[in-house]
C-alpha cells in the first residue's frame, strides 16, 4: 500500500510537479483494482484518465486551483453524465445519467478527476450499507463490521486510502455516521448550502450533499468548490459569506476567540463509551473554550418524526420509478398497472419498500394529520430547541453515533434497531443545521466520532473548531493496520 496523504498534500505535490495528475490517477486505479471493501460500484477508468489529462493541460497553462487534478469518488447518488448512476438499486442498475448533478459540474470545473462511483445503501436508505443491490461494503478497520451508511462506500474508500476525498449525502446522518464508523471527517453543511440538482431525491426537505475527507481543512477545500447558489434547486440558499469565498485560497478562518460549547444532556444519557468524548471536552477546554450543559428536550421525539417525514417524502419521490421513462422495466407487462407494480416490486429492495409503505400509510386518507402534520409540528419543536440553545452557546458537541461499527447482519433483520443508529444525527437534519463528525478515539479497536453542530450557515465555526482540535489530536491521521496519513507528500 502506498502512503496515504491528505488532499492538501496531494494538491501541493501536483502544484510542485512532484507527480502528474495522470500518474496519480493511474496509481488510484491500481489501488482500487485491489480493493477488498466493495467500496465502488463503478470505476470510471477511461473517463478518469481523460479528465486527468485535461487537468494536466490546465496546470501547464498556469491554472492552480487546489483541487485541479486531484482524484475523487462520487457517491453513486450524484448523476454523472454518460456514467452509470445506480443509487445502489436494481431499479437504476442500467441507468446512465443524461446530465451532471450540480455538485459534479462544480467539481469538474475545479478540475477534479472522477475516479468512480461509491457503493451506498439503496436510495440512501440505511445506516449500514447492507441494503445496497451491489452487496455490502466492509469497514476497512474490521471487515466483519459495517462501514455505516448510507454513504458507506465513500467513507470506506477514504478510510482505506483509495481516495483522499469523496462526496456523500446526508438525510438523517448518512455522512456523519459512516464518517464516525470509519474514522474520517464528514461534513453535512446547512440545508440549502449545496445544490440538490442531479442528486437523486430521497427526502427532499432533508437531503444535503457534503464532504468525506481526512480532516477539516480538506473538507473546507471541497466545500469551497461544492457550495453556492443554484437556480435549478428551488431550496438553494442565496448567501454572501466572505469566509466561504476565501476558503480555497486562505483555508479555514482562524477562530481567534473562546467559544461557548454546549453539551446537550439528552445526547449523553445513554452513552456507554463516554471516555473518548470526555477527552474531546478536555482538549477543547484546554484550548480556552467554555463548556456548558444545555438541554434539547425534544431529542427523543426526533427519530419517530424523522421516519414519518422521510418516509412520506420518499414514497412521494420514488413514485417516479414506473418502468416507463428510465430505470428497471419488468418483462412482458400485461397492462399499465402490471408494468408499474412489477417494475417497482422487482426494482426496489426490502428497506426501500418498507419506507415507501411507511410513507404511503402516514400519508393515506385519515392519517395525514395524525402523522405527517404531527411530525412537522415536532420538527418545529426540535428546531426551536436548537434555536434556544444557540441563543446561549456558539456550537454543540455530542457523540456522532451510539455505538462504533457493528457486525454485518447484526441489525439488518431489525429495522427499528437500525433506525436507532440515527439517534444523534437526525435532530440536526430535521432542523437543517450544519454538523461535522470528526474522529475522536477508538472503542475495541474501532473508531468513533464526535459531532459538532452549529447554527445555520456557520460551517466556519464547525470547521474552525474541528481544525483546532485536529491540530492537537491525531485520531484523524490513524488508519487501519497501523498506517498513518501523511500531511506531506512522500515521493
Amino acid at each position, binding site marked *: 500500500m502506498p502512503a496515504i496523504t491528505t488532499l492538501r498534500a496531494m494538491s501541493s505535490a501536483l502544484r510542485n510537479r512532484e507527480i502528474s495528475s495522470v500518474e496519480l490517477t493511474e496509481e488510484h486505479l491500481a489501488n482500487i483494482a485491489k480493493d477488498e471493501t466493495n467500496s465502488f460500484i463503478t470505476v470510471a477508468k477511461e473517463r478518469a484518465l481523460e479528465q486527468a489529462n485535461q487537468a494536466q493541460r490546465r496546470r501547464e497553462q498556469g491554472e492552480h486551483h487546489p483541487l485541479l487534478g486531484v482524484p475523487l469518488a462520487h457517491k453513486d447518488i450524484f448523476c454523472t453524465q454518460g456514467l452509470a448512476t445506480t443509487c445502489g438499486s436494481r431499479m437504476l442498475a442500467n441507468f*446512465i*445519467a*443524461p*446530465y451532471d448533478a450540480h455538485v459534479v459540474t462544480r467539481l469538474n470545473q475545479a478540475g477534479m478527476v472522477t475516479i468512480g462511483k461509491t457503493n451506498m445503501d439503496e436510495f440512501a436508505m440505511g445506516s449500514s450499507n447492507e441494503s445496497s443491490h451491489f452487496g455490502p461494503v466492509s469497514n476497512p478497520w474490521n471487515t466483519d463490521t459495517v462501514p455505516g451508511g448510507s454513504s458507506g462506500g465513500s467513507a470506506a474508500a477514504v478510510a482505506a486510502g483509495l481516495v483522499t476525498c469523496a462526496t456523500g449525502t446526508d438525510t438523517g446522518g448518512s455522512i456523519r455516521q459512516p464518517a464516525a464508523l470509519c474514522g474520517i471527517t464528514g461534513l453535512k453543511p446547512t*440545508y440549502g448550502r449545496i445544490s440538490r440538482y442531479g442528486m437523486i431525491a430521497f427526502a427532499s*426537505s432533508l437531503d444535503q450533499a457534503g464532504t468525506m475527507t481526512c480532516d477539516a481543512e480538506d473538507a473546507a477545500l471541497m466545500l469551497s468548490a461544492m457550495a453556492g447558489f443554484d*437556480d435549478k434547486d*428551488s*431550496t438553494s*440558499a442565496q448567501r454572501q459569506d466572505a469566509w466561504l469565498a476565501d476558503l480555497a485560497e486562505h483555508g479555514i478562518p482562524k477562530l481567534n476567540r473562546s467559544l461557548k460549547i454546549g453539551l446537550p444532556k*439528552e445526547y449523553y*444519557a*445513554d452513552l456507554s463509551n463516554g471516555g473518548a468524548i470526555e477527552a474531546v471536552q478536555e482538549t477543547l477546554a484546554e484550548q480556552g473554550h467554555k463548556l456548558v450543559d444545555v438541554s434539547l*428536550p425534544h431529542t*427523543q*421525539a426526533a427519530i*419517530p*418524526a424523522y*421516519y*414519518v417525514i422521510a418516509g412520506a417524502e420518499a*414514497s412521494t419521490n420514488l*413514485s417516479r420509478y414506473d*418502468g*416507463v421513462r*428510465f*430505470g*428497471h422495466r419488468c418483462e412482458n*407487462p400485461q*397492462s*399499465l398497472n402490471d*408494468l408499474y*407494480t*412489477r417494475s*417497482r*416490486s422487482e426494482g*426496489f429492495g*426490502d428497506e426501500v*419498500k*418498507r419506507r*415507501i*409503505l*411507511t410513507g*404511503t*400509510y*402516514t400519508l393515506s386518507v*385519515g*392519517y395525514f*394529520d*395524525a402523522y405527517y*402534520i*404531527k411530525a412537522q*409540528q415536532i*420538527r*418545529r*419543536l426540535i*428546531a426551536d430547541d436548537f434555536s434556544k440553545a444557540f441563543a446561549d452557546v456558539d456550537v454543540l458537541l455530542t457523540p456522532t453515533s451510539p455505538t462504533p461499527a457493528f457486525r454485518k447482519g447484526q441489525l439488518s433483520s431489525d*429495522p427499528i434497531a437500525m433506525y436507532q443508529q440515527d439517534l444523534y444525527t437526525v435532530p440536526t437534519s*430535521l432542523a*437543517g443545521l450544519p454538523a461535522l463528525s470528526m474522529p475522536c478515539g477508538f472503542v475495541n479497536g474501532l473508531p468513533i466520532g464526535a459531532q459538532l453542530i452549529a447554527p*445555520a450557515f456557520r460551517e466556519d465555526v464547525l470547521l474552525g473548531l474541528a481544525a483546532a482540535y485536529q491540530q492537537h489530536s491525531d485520531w484523524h491521521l490513524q488508519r487501519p493496520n497501523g498506517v498513518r496519513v501523511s500531511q506531506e507528500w512522500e515521493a
Partner: protein
Amino acid sequence: MLITLHFVALMDIRSGNRPTAAILHCNFSILQLHSPLSCLTDPIKITMSETKQSIDLPHLANLARLIFDHDSSESARADLEKIIAMIDAMQTVDTEGVQPLSHPLDGAQRLRQDIISETEQRENFQSAAPATSDGYYLVPRVVE
C-alpha cells in the same frame, strides 16, 4: 423503565375525527398524568407493545404500486407494524398550537420568471428509457 402504548381508538382516525392524544394511552402507572411530554423528554426508553391494529397491507401495497408474495407480505406487515408502533411514540408530545415546519429553515418557495430556460433534449432523455418509438415512450396497450 418501560412505557407501554396501546391503540384503543383507531377508528377515530379512520372516521376523520381530529386525532388527539387520546388515541394512545401510556401506561400511567409509571408516568405523571399531567405531563405527556415526559414520555419523550425523560431519559427513559420508550418501548412499544405490539400494535393492536391490523394493517391493510394489500390496500397500502396497491396505493404504492407494489406487490408482495405470501411470505414477503407477512414480513412486510410485521415490519410495518413495528415501525408504526415506533412512530406512534410521537403522539405523546404536546404539539397544541405549534405551527408545522415543512422547510427546515422555514424558507419561502422561490419562484422563477416564467420564461423558457430549457432546451429540447428529447433524444438525450429518451436514451435512458427502456422502450420508445418515434420519440414516444411505449407502455402496454391501454385502449383496446
